């Protein structure tokens, strides 16, 4: 296709992506170097029969004036990146010097908001992704052994958790395991502990959100694996059966190698999706004990008093860097393949 024709065909979609994906990333980058203005304060002298007192009040008029003149805020350089709510450089130095043992140091650092969120996000990815692959594969194998006639409805039932939006999915689960829901209330009765609830324990909250993640993402892995299983050639399997290979050996030596490329694809996609975990935290109302990077950005953006654009943008930039690190191996591999293909 000639370049000119290609240009006209691609222009609308290209423009949409540049304007609303490319530019916002740049805009985020710029915003991350600015911070909201400080409030202008003035001294007010107040005199009464007992003497004069000087108090400091916020000058609203001046503050609004400055905000209107420079809506982006004041230039802050990398200040936002290094402040307490992000990389917290000063705090970490302080902890390093003050704490006695390494354990105490780690303890202090993981209490800083950014590191807390990073650790939750990584833990979530680390536990959900492999389990999604495993459960998805087992369901696919298992459904593949069922009679063809009843597979349709079974597949429909299996993919339900995936097609609802994460907020709805987590709400539906939350209403069951909450202390007033069917499962939560029964567990309380069984354990004979009326205070046992999701919100009371950080570990329980994390486990719940991770289980939710597995529940929500496994159907996707299942669908892809199931389709891949349909393409596994029959001859090697028959040969293996004749040679006396057990079921497990057949899966390990024939099926798995065949669907290996698909496994990496699913792992990549679910890693990308898990890294942006955010809605379940709202659905489970778990803000208290589990915060993810995306949730931090959301929290800054819905701030009641003044929207913390700079802070949200700095976290966003660091999230994007995180995604880039995750994607790098894939991109490098594709580039190498592309180079050798030429």
């Amino acid at each position, binding site marked *: 296709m000639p370049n000119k024709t290609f240009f006209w*065909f691609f222009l*609308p979609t290209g423009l949409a992506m540049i304007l609303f*994906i490319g530019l916002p990333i740049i805009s985020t980058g710029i915003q991350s170097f600015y911070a909201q203005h400080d409030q202008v304060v003035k001294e007010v002298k107040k005199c009464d029969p007992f003497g004069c007192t000087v108090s400091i009040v916020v000058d609203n008029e001046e503050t609004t004036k400055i905000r209107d003149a420079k809506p982006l805020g004041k230039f802050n350089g990398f200040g936002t990146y290094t402040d307490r709510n992000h990389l917290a450089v000063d705090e970490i130095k302080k902890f390093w010097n003050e704490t006695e043992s390494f354990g105490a140091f780690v303890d202090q650092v993981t209490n800083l908001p950014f590191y807390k969120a990073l650790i939750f996000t990584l833990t979530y990815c680390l536990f959900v992704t492999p389990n999604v692959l495993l459960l998805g594969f087992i369901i696919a194998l298992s459904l593949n*052994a069922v009679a063809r006639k009843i597979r349709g409805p079974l*597949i429909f039932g299996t993919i*339900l958790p995936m097609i609802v939006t994460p907020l709805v999915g987590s709400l539906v689960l939350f209403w069951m395991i909450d202390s007033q829901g069917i499962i939560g209330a029964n567990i309380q009765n069984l354990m004979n502990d009326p205070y046992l609830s999701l919100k009371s324990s950080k570990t329980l909250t994390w486990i719940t959100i991770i289980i939710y993640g597995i529940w929500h993402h496994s159907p996707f892995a299942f669908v892809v694996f199931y389709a891949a*299983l349909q393409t596994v050639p029959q001859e090697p399997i028959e040969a293996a059966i004749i040679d006396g290979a057990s079921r497990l050996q057949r899966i390990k030596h024939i099926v798995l190698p065949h669907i290996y490329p698909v496994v990496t694809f699913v792992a990549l996609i679910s890693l990308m999706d898990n*890294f942006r975990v955010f809605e379940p935290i709202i659905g489970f109302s778990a803000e208290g004990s589990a915060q993810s990077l995306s949730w931090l950005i959301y929290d800054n953006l819905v701030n009641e008093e003044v929207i913390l654009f700079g802070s949200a943008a700095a976290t966003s930039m660091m999230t*994007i860097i995180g995604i880039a690190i995750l*994607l790098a191996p894939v991109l490098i591999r594709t580039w190498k393949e592309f180079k050798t293909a030429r």
Partner: protein
Amino acid sequence: MDYGLDTKSTRLKTFNTIFIITWLLIACFPFIWTFWGSFKVRADFFSRSDWWYAISAFNTLVETGGKFTSNAYTEAWTEGEFWKASKNTIIVTVFVVSISLFLGTLGAYALSRSTEKYAFWILMIALIFRAMPHITLVSGYLFPFFELQIWGILPTTIVVLVAINQPFTLWLLYSFFKTVPKELDESALIDGCTYFQAFRHIIMPVMWPGVITAGLFSLMLAYNDFTVTALLLNQENHTMVPKIQSYLGTNQHEGNLMWAVSAVVSATAPLFMLVMFFQRQVISGLTAGAVKG
């Protein structure tokens, strides 16, 4: 995969059946339970004292005189203004699907017929864009949108959702157009058609299976989106999912939980029907990028 030689022991078969039934229960029961509970009063569905109330409908009988009540639905749809939210969702979904299909088919067709190197790089960039968490993009939008005073209205959200949706649509339709033989439109070009004419008369009649799949995914994205709609729309223009969140209440004001329950059911039911109807297309779309490599 039915192996002729493969004989399964009965033990394995029973184990398999039990496993599938357990999994289906885990996958589906929460939805069935929520559907059931949406016809009860709050004291039954969220009862601390006795979960059996949710089955026996003790409080529902006391409060409304029947075993089932549709109060939660009527209240959420009228008082809770869920009708407005669903109207907004329909507007957003219809526009997002049609615009993103229009842009996506043109772009993906060009990509699939181009032999240049930049086509490969465009696809790679689209993959990177696909990986961007939506919330990071939203944090880029908010400030410019406030300044331009286009925040809070439906058209802005529609355009944003179309753009966010493009990378996936492009990949899906690209792999679909690759399966449409090149000879079809090449012969039309030899006969003197321009590329646009070839696209209009040769490709358009055969592209519908791919377009339906891509359309379904755009629809699910627009319908299910929370991040973009919650932050880019004002209260008045909220779509269903942010509306459900607003029913949950915050620390400042108490929400109405039963409204949220009935709203969840109302929002999920059409989606389930749709997927039931188009199950084959959904599955082919999910596997398009994967199986063919």
